């Protein structure tokens, strides 16, 4: 167990403290050494396969596999989109990484461009992430232009769906950051109709380290079957939002204890607004692992752990998230637009003491109707979250519906 293992040392966040701001090129090169030359990393995709690196945008798709699917369609004309949209409200890890280690992200983009056969890199960074923009702009200015790869920093629109892969491509092609429903996937035909790799910034940072130190090094971190490390964002009522790097297999209980703000009876939102609620007492020993968590009905997602104290109302917390998800649809697919709005309104009625007699049953039924019926997975994410809320806060929901009041007489009940 933890006490007998070597303490985990950060990897993508190794280096100067956060207070030092974005790491400069000279410090970055001194600390990590220069990237191996393209000829030395010719088999990088295979190395990524053996490293087991999983994508960090939320889906956990194997990175090597994704790069290969782009490379197979590329005739040297592919595009790499560095996805730093980070629209998840509870996540701060991508913005932090871009703001503090911009050169590691750029290194990752370069090795990806080389591996998939790309001539262009687009840094697609949420416009609200000002420190990330500053860090990346400074990093780009510090570098000699690469004759083979053009790099461009783009401000992504704010919004939950703006980071979805087809929405990213749509925005870069037509200025419209809404998902599309086309036969061709981005890896076949994406930005400017070219094969396009849309990859999360943290995935690329890990790839940049694997390019230097290899698959075995990457696999030397991790406690269980899923190897390596991951950035997580921890938040809760008692602590401000913090970004940490953990090795996979670290338990949720360890994070709760070190965060210091999650007394017994607390609940935790795992994976963000697309994730799942869980009772902290029940998941204390659950390892943070994107492969095993879904087997237990939990989500690692983009690494969000957001704690809610037992004296805070789960119905109110759920209402807040559902309202955000309903507001954040692309307003394209009817079942998502109307279904999420209906679920959000019912949850709001429950939380504010004006519930109708069948609101809970309706939310559950609507959830089943909405699932899988969008062009993207926005409705599915909301459904997973709300269903977990109905289970974890079952008594709360029942009290709100039947007695039209919060069981705890909480102050947030209006």
């Amino acid at each position, binding site marked *: 167990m933890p006490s007998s293992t070597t303490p985990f040392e950060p990897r993508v966040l190794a280096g100067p403290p956060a207070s030092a701001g974005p790491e400069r090129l000279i410090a970055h090169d001194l600390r990590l050494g220069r990237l191996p030359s393209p000829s030395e990393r010719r088999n990088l995709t295979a190395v990524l396969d053996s490293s087991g690196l999983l994508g960090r945008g939320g889906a956990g*798709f194997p990175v090597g596999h994704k790069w290969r699917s782009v490379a197979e369609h590329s005739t040297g004309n592919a595009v790499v989109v560095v996805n730093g949209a980070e629209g998840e409200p509870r996540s701060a890890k991508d913005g932090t990484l871009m703001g503090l280690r911009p050169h590691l992200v750029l290194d990752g983009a370069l090795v990806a461009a080389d591996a998939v056969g790309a001539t262009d890199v687009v840094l697609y960074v949420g416009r609200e992430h000002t420190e990330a923009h500053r860090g990346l702009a400074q990093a780009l200015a510090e570098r000699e232009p690469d004759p083979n790869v053009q790099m461009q920093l783009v401000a992504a629109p704010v919004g939950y769906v703006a980071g979805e892969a087809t929405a990213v491509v749509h925005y870069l092609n037509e200025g419209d950051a809404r998902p599309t429903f086309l036969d061709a996937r981005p890896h076949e035909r994406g930005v400017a109709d070219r094969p396009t790799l849309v990859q999360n910034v943290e995935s690329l940072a890990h790839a940049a380290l694997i390019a230097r130190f290899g698959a075995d090094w990457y696999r030397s971190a991790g406690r269980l079957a899923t190897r390596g490390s991951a950035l997580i964002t921890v938040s809760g009522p008692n602590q401000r939002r913090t970004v940490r790097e953990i090795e996979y297999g670290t338990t949720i209980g360890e994070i709760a204890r070190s965060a210091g703000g999650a007394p017994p009876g607390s609940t935790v939102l795992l994976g963000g607004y697309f994730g799942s609620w869980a009772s902290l007492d029940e998941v204390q020993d659950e390892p943070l692992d994107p492969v095993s968590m879904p087997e237990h009905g939990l989500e690692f997602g983009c690494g969000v752990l957001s704690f809610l104290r037992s004296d805070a109302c789960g119905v109110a917390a759920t209402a807040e998230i559902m309202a955000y998800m309903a507001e954040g649809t692309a307003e394209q697919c009817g079942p998502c637009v109307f279904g999420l709005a209906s679920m959000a309104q019912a949850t709001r009625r429950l939380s504010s003491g004006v519930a109708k007699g069948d609101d809970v049953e309706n939310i559950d039924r609507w959830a089943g109707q909405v699932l899988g019926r969008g062009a993207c997975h926005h409705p599915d994410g909301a459904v997973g979250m709300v269903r977990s809320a109905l289970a974890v806060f079952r008594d709360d929901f029942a009290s709100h519906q039947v007695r039209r009041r919060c069981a705890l007489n909480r102050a947030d009940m209006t």
Partner: protein
Amino acid sequence: MAQTLRLNPIRCDGYGICAGVLPQRIRLDEWGYPLIDSSPIDEHLVARARRAVDACPVLALSLRRDRSAHGRANSGADEPRLSHRLAGQPSAIGS
């Protein structure tokens, strides 16, 4: 090869005509949007399915022969359906 129905949910505006033409495979949810059975269409329903496709005023419905007809999520493509925020596949969905 058997044919299947595919809906483009972005195009669909919930006219609901399809459900009237092919009630055997399409019904409407409470907001008026079609819930479609995407399993292969029996031979005796193919002509009717084609009429449902033709009846859609916004061309949201199509008949597919290829394996990807079940929707892109099952099309065998290498890439995940999503990236970034939209990617966390809640377990409640199953797979």
